[in-house]
């Protein structure tokens, strides 16, 4: 009896050791490459650290500086505004474009698969290639987009070289609003909406046909069916895409670095939080301050995600009730 129990124990502990050995590479990588930098950056955010000399603890000085810049709209404040503008505009437009395209691409028409492939293609283009392509397309002087706009009598914006913001302040009626660098980045992000579109398409396929049939029997038109059946059923996916979209938008770096001469040009109109962190850390050698921004970014993202989760109970509908 005892021999059997100890043998079972041995087998059990042997399995645990085997399991631990299997997860060891991942666990080691997680500890060294994720957890340690995470913890170290939290400590550095309370330090002055220039990479060349050991970090020196300065308490909350970096966070006080962030608060000061936020209030004055300089540096961090400017980056927060630029990032918020880009995130809100790109996420809202991505949802609208993604849902709209997905609905259209779900229609049973000849060549449906080809259309789907065409709209998905931009999302597999590498970010660097896409940024260079858009810099050419949106060139104020010789770009294709302005060529077309001018041809149909519309004003030609300066796109990546303009400091203007089309969406804020909302004064379209004054005729002074114009697309600027952030709007061009938003346009570029909406062009790559294919990833989200595919998820919407999959979700559309999951909506029970019986709901549409019942609504049709009740005399509901296309618009009513879209509003009362399609949208509520898509809402969990829209919610997921909004959360992911906000995270991606706030972390956007490569395309911003490329179009802004690596410094937020023109006139800091593309100085996003990620670029601000990069410049602070690797050009100004203010690793402590950069870590503090990174942590604020983390907190803001956490708060935004929590707020989205909180709001989801009012507009996200799960089939069969809440998850």
């Amino acid at each position, binding site marked *: 009896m005892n021999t059997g129990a100890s043998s079972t124990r041995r087998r059990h502990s042997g399995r645990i050791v085997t399991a631990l050995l299997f997860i060891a590479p991942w666990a080691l990588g997680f500890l060294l490459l994720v957890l340690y930098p995470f913890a170290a950056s939290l400590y550095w955010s309370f330090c*002055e650290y*220039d*990479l*060349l*000399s050991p970090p*020196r603890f300065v308490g909350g000085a970096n966070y006080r*500086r962030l608060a000061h810049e936020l209030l004055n709209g*300089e*540096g961090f404040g400017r980056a927060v505004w630029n990032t918020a503008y880009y995130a809100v505009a790109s996420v809202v437009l991505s949802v609208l474009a993604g849902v709209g395209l997905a609905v259209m691409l779900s229609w049973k028409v000849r060549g449906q698969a080809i259309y789907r492939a065409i709209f998905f293609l931009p999302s597999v283009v590498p970010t660097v290639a896409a940024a260079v392509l858009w810099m*050419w397309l949106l*060139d*104020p*002087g*010789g*770009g294709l987009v302005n060529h077309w706009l001018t041809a149909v009598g519309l004003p*030609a914006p*300066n796109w*990546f*070289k*303009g*400091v*203007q913001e089309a969406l804020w302040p909302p004064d379209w009626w004054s005729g*002074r609003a*114009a697309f600027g660098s952030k709007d061009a980045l938003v346009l570029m992000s909406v062009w790559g909406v294919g990833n989200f579109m595919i998820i919407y398409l999959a979700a559309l396929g999951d909506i029970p046909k019986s709901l549409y049939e019942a609504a049709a029997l009740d005399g509901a038109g296309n618009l009513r069916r879209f509003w009362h059946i399609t949208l509520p059923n898509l809402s969990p996916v829209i919610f997921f895409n909004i959360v992911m979209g906000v995270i991606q938008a706030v972390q956007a770096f490569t395309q911003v670095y490329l179009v802004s001469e*690596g*410094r*937020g*040009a*023109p*006139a*800091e109109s593309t100085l996003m939080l990620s670029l601000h962190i990069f*410049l602070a850390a*690797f*050009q*100004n*050698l203010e690793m402590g301050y950069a870590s503090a921004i990174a942590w604020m970014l983390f907190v803001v993202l956490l708060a935004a995600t929590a707020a989205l989760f909180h709001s989801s109970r009012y507009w996200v509908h799960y089939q069969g009730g809440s998850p």
Partner: protein
Amino acid sequence: MNVRNAATALVVLLATALLFWPDSGDQEEAVPAGRKEVIFWHFWGGDDRRVVQDIVARFNRSQNEHFVRAIAMPGNNLDLKLFLAVTGGRPPDVINQDDPIVADWAARGALMPLEEIATQQECERLREWLFPAAVDLCEHQGRLYGLCNGLDIRALYYNNTMLKKYGLTPPRSIADLDRIAEKIPANDLPANARPGGGNGGKRIRFGYLPDARRLWAWAIVFGGRWTDDHGNVVLDDEANIRALQWMTSYSRKYGPRTVTAFRQGDQSLPGKSFPLLAGRYAIVMDGQWRTRDIAAAQKRQQAQGQPVTEYGVCPLPPPPGGRALAGWVNGNFFLLPRGAANSQGAWEFMKFWSGFDGHEADAAQTCAEGGWIPVSKAVVDQPRFQAFLREQPLFREFVALAAEPFQKPTPIVPGAPFLYREVVSTAESAMYEDDPPAARVLLQRASENVARHLKRFNRRAATP
């Protein structure tokens, strides 16, 4: 084993063999016995890299004590690599840089002053030997932290054929420059042509258009300064404000959006060719490297039997009370990272390249081959370089400016990268925003930002 499995196995085998195949194409040359290696990091590519390799080979042939190994790497992350190498205790022996980082890195203890590797007498002779701008670029708190090996000077290139066509002459004052900008027509339509006819009345050229980045140069020409006698940053110096106001007058006149769009168009020319050659401007500010482009374009015109366009170079014209022969200078310089293994060998290589201490003829050859401006009159006077100047008469104007005392670099102060970005962003705001604050307000704000940055830096430096 079926055919598919056999094919898969073969592919895997080939891939593995390729992965572990010894690299025979790019083997490093071994350090000759009895010589000490000098690791040299630089960022030159293309044709310039060939010139660098040639200089290194010439140095190595001339030596029996040191052996330089040049390592090229992308310029945009060279800084970070260096800091990690310094922190890790294995920095290169010498690096080449062209950003205004000397004081910043020196104050952080990453660089070794030349005084620690050269004798006092040698340093004094070096100061005498160098052009003032070459000293300014590497001096921090009275010590030289680097040795300049080439200067970059800005001047005005003008299309003399175009100026003559409209009865104009090269500018000798700001008023002349403004007059040229005014007189050169926006396009080739007859003056009484209706807008919308022909090429649509679209602007295809400017006589002259200031560039926001060039506030660095114009401020000095207007009599301005970036730091006071105590080393404090004074971006809002009255003359700096006047310079920015003058630059902004162009964007107010033509409209900031028009100016921005036209400027951006310069960069979308095929092969990013020089906009002066494309006929987009009558006058453009640029550096000495454009003389090659002009010579090549004239040669092409000649070969094609076209009339050869006449170009010229002149110094930046001053306003009344401004400074003649002034402007903004930058350049390339060697730096000695602290903690390097063979700083003495690096110092020998630096002297060889820049031409100091009997290496003038070698440096003259280097500068002529690279199209670089020497850092000393002693190199300029060498027969090899004089022959080069006879072939490139426009280049001579830049070389003459290199010796002038008011060719000033971005201030060599800690935090200069921040300062540089702040000044350029301020000029961009003033020139490209629809309703920007006044130039004075913008420069005051920038000055305060920089002062705060420097205060933080100094507090950090003062704390043990």
